[in-house]
């Protein structure tokens, strides 16, 4: 009985180990959000460029707002 159990345990373990590579090979078929990794990862470059561009535009926008505020202050104080 004990010996039989041990044998069963061994075969299950071996079966599981034998299946391991199968699960590894099967991995690419798992559905993932791979859009950003397709086409030579060009979308990553697009994203990076957009982040830099939008960051700079945001910075420019803030400067614009600051200048507008200063201009308002000047007219309020009636400086011509």
């Amino acid at each position, binding site marked *: 009985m004990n010996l039989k159990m041990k044998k069963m345990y061994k075969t299950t373990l071996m079966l599981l180990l034998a299946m391991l590579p199968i699960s590894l090979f099967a991995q690419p078929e798992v559905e993932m959000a791979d859009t950003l990794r397709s086409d030579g990862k060009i979308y990553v470059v697009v994203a990076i460029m957009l982040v830099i561009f939008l960051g700079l535009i945001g910075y420019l926008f803030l400067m*614009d707002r600051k200048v507008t505020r200063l201009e308002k202050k000047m007219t309020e104080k009636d400086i011509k």
Partner: protein
Amino acid sequence: MKHSWWKFVSVVLLIYTIVGGLLFEVPRLNIVNETIRALYFHVPMWFGMVVMFLVSTIHAAKYLRKPNSVTDIQSVEFANTGLAFGLLGIFTGVIWANYTWGSPWHGDPKQNGAAVSILVYLAYFILRSSLENEEQRARLSAVYNIFAFAAMIPLIFIIPRMTSSMHPGSGGNPGFNMYDLDSSMRMVFYPAVIGWILLGVWIATLRIRTRLIEEKLFELEDEKNV
């Protein structure tokens, strides 16, 4: 903000340029390969520079007709923005040339002409900083500004077309014939040009507005000192 709609147009056009410029179909050409996409980013720098310098020159002529410190400031700041565009054009060109022509500085007529016209405009700023008297500075630099623009036209637009240049559109051809096969490139290129020019105008107007505030504050202090 109501009068700033064109700033949003600029941002939208440039977002479209980045996405479309990197992802849309382009002609498959040897040697240039994917770097053909640099056209969407490198060439608009020069369009931006020429437009900024043109506006600067118009203000310089305006100043000479009717001297006014505001016109002078407008002229300088547009030249300043134009210079920034020109330097970006040179640097992007250096990178592009390195990987397609084989060396960063190829001595290409257009490359040299662009470099010379940037030097001509650098001299404009040196001239300005070397004059103490404000009216003299404004008047002399306005005259020089017109000369600089007049010098830029043959350097960038005429000489490279008369000699053999590696740039497309040289040797007597009007530009972009090489890309005529694929008119889809124009769909990104023209919006890119408009977007970058509008962005340049935005930056220049910001600089002008800052300078005008500075000017008013200086005047205020002068009044206090009197």
